[in-house]
């Protein structure tokens, strides 16, 4: 196991700024697609023990029923996963915004979930990769679960690595009951590369 990497306050701020730009871009696309005002939060950047991963999901209660998609990304010696977690109560409002008419069943929810995941994950990763000057290839998205509780979501994470760098971005939409959490998780062995890239950016 590699030694625990420490990020200085400055590096963390810088990463936060990078996430800010990436997240803003994703929010812009979402706003354009849905024609709504997206409330921008400040991304949370944290080095976490994998056992604390649930703490990264600060905006979601354990008892809430959620649906989630994850997508791996890799490139320039940086690897990780993007997770999009949707509060199940959001779907009716999203369907309304996308002008979907009809009964919202599990398939429609999946369709909506995938649509939003495509936009948010794609735009965020593109934002990060452009700023850090790296290229990622994205794997196929995978459904982590529909209508499950938050603890069930992350219990499947094996303890292959100890640390993860987590960027949590919580998107909410004005006057709408839409709440989703985008998590960018970087593997332990990506951290030193990421740190170099950020240090370079700060010079």
């Amino acid at each position, binding site marked *: 196991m590699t030694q625990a990497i420490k990020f200085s306050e400055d590096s963390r701020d810088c990463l936060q700024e990078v996430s800010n730009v990436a997240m803003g871009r994703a929010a812009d*696309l979402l706003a*354009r*697609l849905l024609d709504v005002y997206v409330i921008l939060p400040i991304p949370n950047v944290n080095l976490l023990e994998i056992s604390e991963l649930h703490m990264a999901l600060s905006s979601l209660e354990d008892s809430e029923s959620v649906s989630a998609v994850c*997508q791996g990304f890799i490139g320039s010696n940086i690897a990780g996963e993007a997770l999009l977690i949707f509060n199940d109560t959001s779907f009716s409002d999203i369907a309304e915004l996308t002008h979907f008419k009809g009964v919202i069943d599990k*398939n429609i929810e*999946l*369709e909506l979930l*995938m*649509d939003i995941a*495509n*936009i948010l994950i*794609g*735009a965020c990763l*593109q934002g990060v990769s452009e700023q850090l000057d790296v290229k990622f290839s*994205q794997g*196929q*998205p*995978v*459904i982590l679960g529909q209508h499950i509780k938050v603890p069930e979501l992350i219990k499947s994470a094996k303890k292959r690595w100890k640390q993860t760098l987590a960027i949590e971005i919580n998107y909410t939409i004005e006057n709408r009951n839409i709440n989703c959490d985008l998590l960018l998780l970087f593997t332990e062995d990506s951290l030193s590369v990421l740190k170099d890239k950020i240090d370079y950016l700060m010079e």
Partner: protein
Amino acid sequence: MQLQEQDQFQDFHWMIEMLQTIDVGVVVLNKEYQIKSWNGFMENHSGIDSKDAIDACIFVLFKDMDEFWLRHKADTVFKLKNHAFSIWEQHPYIFKFKNNRPITGVAEFMYQNCTFIPIKDLRGEIDKIAILVYDVTDTAVNKLEAIKVTEELKQLSRTDVLTQMYNRGYWEETLVGEFNRFARTNRVSSLVMLDIDHFKKVNDTFGHQAGDAALKMVANTLTQTLRDTDIAGRYGGEEFSIILVDTDAKSSIVFCERLRKVIEKSEIYYAGKQIKLTISLGIYEVHTKLSTYNQWIEGADAALFEAKNSGRNQTKIYKYKDH
């Protein structure tokens, strides 16, 4: 100079060759949804030659394609300059191709994961998109099979073999759920415990198989009498339990008495001998003062006990007392 050109041509040639033969479908579409590239994978699986495919509109070539959906997907790629993905769980396929293994494969068609990629022209504008088509039939079939088996196992673990009703474990889980729901919504439900009268005598006189037939008869009658929302299970031996959702004790009597009378009139024959049965029932409407679901069961049990003591073949209601 000429040599260099020849080298470049060589490189171009083998790259095209590879694109033609890789085991992934590659389709390029322009903004009018005309096909601009159609590789070997697509030719072989669709049976459409690339000379027929090139410049044809994809919706004309594939009449049963979900045009609205594909346009929506492609539009976001053109507009947002983003990758887009479609997975088989969401959309089993975009191009309806036959299963790659026509003889031993179980799926009727090829399950596909697809990636949509924006392609820039020389000026940096997105004027085309590429669709990559992956055959994921094996993964999909395995996963669907696993889901089915899990579902069957779940069903099995919930079911009482003899009566095909919910077994006690699962029924109690739903009772807990109902008890918690009441705490949230304050909408009353009633719990009914029922027991076959003198069941031991049936067993002793006619044998255990006759007893089993009696249990099945009661279970069937009960199942037929239930409303869709009610949840019944075999609680143990000859005892059954029912949650009457959104029903107070008074309305529960109607249900219980109807069931009691139907069973009283029913006749079962076992090995040529007629067996007549009666049942006793106890009702307990849920109460805000109850702190655990066990107290709910105890109340219904007490009502059942009273019905037995008062001469059987009747229904009694338990009134809330401080526990």
